[in-house]
């Protein structure tokens, strides 16, 4: 197993194969039930549901990204929403530019909100986003660059633990305030919305929506495999080593801060990708995605699903968001009780999350990543 190339290694794991199998089967089933089953049939999956699943999957990818840094590197980022939102904004800018002259004011270049605020030309940072390739590259590069800058400073100075968590929170909070400012040129509180098409496909057609759902599924699969490949490589073990005994790892000659930075940047890029897939599906990106509470919520998904397992993060993200969808519809006045109660009960009674329950059944010898000692849990 160890002798395979690092990227192929996850395919030798049972858990990864099961995960990919379930994911692909779900995607195929949803597609089939949406396309082939007539509307009104009890098995019919509506465009609404497809869209909802697409959203869940993008959240799942975000949760995987968070689990990579929190579960394996021990960095509790309370600011991953920022990378998600930045990816989303990059995508949003592309979608805005695709509107072209079909905005309400019919301006050929400027998005509506700029006309509305009386801007006469496109700000420099909006250039290039009319090209899909450039925009998609930025989806990865912008969050990556921010993570690189922030991580370089923080890891070099050995900011750790709670201090790191709080300054990641400060980071996303500062970005939220900045993006709320209309002068920033990102549409202020209203954000970017009213998208028309992506790569020439009409965003309001249910076929595009299905396509986006499938694309998100594929992205999640790839992201999962990439993360799995990282954590099963020697680098992944260095991460776990860093998480549990940072000083020891340093004394073994590893430049711990560089490893942290590398994984942090990869995670930020994945979060950005998740954001970029999320935006066309929900149709809006606005600064509230930067809200620190949202970032805390992401961590909760991971905790609920089970930390340091990756598949647990996926389960957690889907479970919590599904619960939210159901509860806000079924008991609009009391859903916060249910959600809050869920968080409390899971942390108290299921310290290793849903995946912990699964792991009890699937526990195999040597599957070292799937379990955490008490000390790690405390880290």
């Amino acid at each position: 197993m160890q002798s395979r190339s690092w990227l192929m290694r996850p395919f030798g794991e049972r858990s990864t194969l099961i995960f990919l199998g379930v994911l692909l089967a779900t995607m195929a089933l949803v597609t089939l039930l949406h396309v082939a089953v007539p509307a009104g049939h009890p098995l019919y999956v509506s465009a609404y549901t497809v869209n909802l699943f697409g959203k869940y999957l993008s959240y799942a990818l975000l949760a995987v990204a968070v689990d990579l840094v929190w579960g394996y590197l021990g960095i509790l980022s309370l600011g991953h929403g920022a990378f998600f939102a930045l990816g989303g904004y990059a995508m949003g800018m592309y979608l805005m530019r695709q509107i072209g002259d079909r905005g309400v004011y019919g301006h050929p270049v400027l998005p509506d909100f700029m006309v509305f605020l009386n801007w006469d030309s496109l700000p420099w940072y909006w250039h290039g986003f009319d090209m899909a390739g450039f925009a998609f590259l930025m989806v990865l590069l912008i969050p990556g660059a921010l993570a690189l800058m922030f991580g370089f400073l923080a890891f070099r100075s050995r900011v750790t633990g709670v201090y790191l968590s709080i300054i990641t929170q400060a980071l996303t909070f500062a970005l939220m305030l900045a993006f709320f400012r209309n002068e920033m040129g990102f549409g202020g509180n209203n954000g970017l919305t009213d998208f028309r098409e992506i790569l020439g496909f009409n965003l309001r057609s249910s076929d595009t929506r299905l396509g986006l759902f499938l694309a998100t599924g594929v992205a999640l699969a790839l992201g999962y495999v990439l993360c799995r490949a990282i954590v099963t490589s020697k680098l992944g073990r260095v991460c776990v080593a860093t998480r549990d005994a940072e000083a020891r790892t340093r004394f073994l000659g590893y430049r711990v801060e560089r490893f942290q930075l590398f994984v942090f940047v990869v995670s930020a890029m994945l979060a950005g990708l998740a954001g970029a897939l999320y935006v066309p599906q929900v149709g809006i990106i606005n600064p509230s995605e930067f809200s620190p509470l949202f970032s805390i919520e992401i961590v909760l998904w991971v905790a609920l699903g089970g930390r340091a397992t990756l598949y647990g993060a996926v389960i957690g993200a889907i479970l919590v968001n599904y619960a939210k969808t159901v509860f806000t519809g079924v008991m609009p006045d009391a859903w916060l009780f249910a959600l809050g109660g869920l968080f409390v009960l899971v942390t108290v009674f299921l310290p290793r999350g849903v995946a912990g329950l699964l792991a009890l059944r699937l526990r195999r010898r040597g599957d070292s990543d799937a379990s955490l000692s008490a000390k790690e849990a405390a880290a």
Partner: protein
Amino acid sequence: MNASRRNMPFPVRIMSSPSCAVAAALLAVASYGAVGQALAQEEPIKVGILHSLSGTMAISESTLKDTVEMLIEQQNEQGGLLGRQLEAVVVDPASNWPLFAERARELLEQHEVDVVFGNWTSVSRKAVLPVFEELNGLLFYPVQYEGEESSENVFYTGAAPNQQAIPAVEYLLNEVGVERFALLGTDYVYPRTTNRILEAFLKEEHGIADEDIMINYTPFGHSDWQNIVAEVRRFGSEGKKTAVVSTINGDANVPFYRELANQGIDAADIPVIAFSVGEQELSGIDTGPLVGHLAAWNYFMSVDTDANYDFIDAWIDYTGDEEAVTNDPMEAHYIGFNMWAEAVRKAGTTDVDAIKEAIIGVTVPNLTGGYAAMMPNHHITKPVLIGEVQDNGQFDIVWQTPSTVAGDAWSDYLPGSRDLIADWRKPMECGNFNVASGRCGGSTAAEEAEAVLAE
């Protein structure tokens, strides 16, 4: 397509082919007269309510949910509509904008509601707009807003800037003799636009100089107003009569007014006229020190008409709270609901397209003793009232427009929208018709036609 699916009088399986959908839609409309009545007895009319019940906006929106529920209850007591009962479908978008879009889709696609009453913030409206246009739903939006929008599927029962901001400033200029203006707002699109419109209006129409206009934006929920209020105090002590025009939103108002009172800014010296502070907001503030500050709305609870007293009594009975207050967006829902009900009666169906056509020109009584009419641009006519805060948390109406004002979707004071008009009647059917170029710029209708051709 979905609209037609929803209103199908008998189960027809539609595959996603446009021609099939068009045929089905025609069939649906044609057969409604005959089959519609028979079906009507069985199924209630579903009314969607899309207001946040949790999160930051719950403070404003939750009473609107109750209002619509009360109106539905009253309507049902009168026998419902078209002989069918009304049923409220309540969901909670939790003050989360993407969730608004999701919930809107749920209401329209899963619950197949006939009409939706909802939204408060501009951003939530912007988020659901594409959903309503895509699924051809009906949305009644009850809050004063920045304008610059007219959607085929949305009816704006709150005030446009020309129904609130401009008359309010004219009042300050003409009746109070104000020469300097401090425009304070929360940093989002409504205050930004309103202030831009006001700035242009003050400079162009009244020759107010640059140094006599101060503009300041603060973040949502801003709670430390010391510096800004001190600045306003200095701004107002330069010898010219000064007023503050406040588009400060929601939660930030309480600390703002507290600071005003404590720094001793009296309404008689520097009056504050607010566009977002109503009876409900005042119910969270000790109004003793605020007597005399102003608000501009299209309705006040203190309006002295029997219709209003009936509404207030019904509301108090419905909530069981003797101290319950009514406010402008509630009246907007009252008007919107009655307009929709009237349009349903007129059209004899709840079909969205039929309602859209029938509702233009519908006139219903408002609570201030006049009538509100739905204009072709999907905005309504409203009187503009200026009220002064009283120590009992109510407003005393000190001025009002002689007649009602029709809402203007596109402001005359913004360069981008000067030439735009909205008219959803045939044959124009356009939300942003450019009178200069004579074409419907970027309209969704044109785009949809393209899309159909492309397929």
